[in-house]
């Protein structure tokens, strides 16, 4: 088994978010979300959006659909 498991901290989450946004070549999470919603995102950018939602969840955000 080769799972990667790591404990994050607020500063590590901030750094990871910045790294993911850079990799997605966007300036902000809303910009990337718009690209995903408008079918303009690559497969990798869609995966990054999922990962960014995960970071928000770790920070206390709750996924909601209204």
């Amino acid at each position, binding site marked *: 088994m080769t799972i990667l498991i790591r*404990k*994050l*901290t607020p500063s590590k989450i901030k750094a990871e978010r910045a790294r993911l946004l850079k*990799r997605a070549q966007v300036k902000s999470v809303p910009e990337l979300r718009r690209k995903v919603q408008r*079918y303009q995102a690559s497969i990798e950018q*869609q*995966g*990054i959006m999922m990962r960014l939602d995960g970071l928000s969840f*770790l920070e206390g955000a709750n996924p909601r659909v209204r």
Partner: protein
Amino acid sequence: MDIEEAAAQFTRELEALINKLIPFPVVLVAEWQQFRGVWRATISTADIAGLPISINAKPTFQLQFKYHCEFHTARKRLTVRSSSFKVMHAITRLPLWHYDYVWEMKKADSAIAHLNVHAHRNEIAAAMAIANPDSDNMEVQALHFPFGGPRFRPILEDVFEMLITEFNIDTAPGAIRVLKKSRNRYFERQLETAVFDQPETAAATLRQLGYIVEPPSLL
């Protein structure tokens, strides 16, 4: 058991399952953090693009998934708060359908687990326009096709089984057998949790079957 052990155990189970389903190795990543006294964990593929799915060795789909979990210290177990399984087309990179589970779904209890299909039908768009004339989203993928509440919802095994039975995707030998075994384990866990949720109903059913069941206060 603590959050690290629980997250590692769940992630290992998932990874072992996936590696028995598809014919190449997959690595998963689990990350966790404490928020206001609650331990939270996320699980996804280490490869940010997700899993490539092929048919007759031809790349056809891409599967991305995520689990957002909380660790219940009293019950020493991980609870999934939300999950998403998204199937995309490998070449056009467009999303095709995705199954979501959102524990705090506000729209409808019946759609806590739901399916979104990225497709278009004029008739549905027209009905949506009548129902919500001020909305700027008249696309079918905005609809949440309900798959029930938090128990016995569609899981990763179901997504794979659908891809196997409907598209004959390339799999490792014995994939269907592995899927069925894993899903039975999931059903057992769901049943266990359902008993925690509704112990009186569980006790009444067991009494109908001839078991002698007494409330804890009488023991």
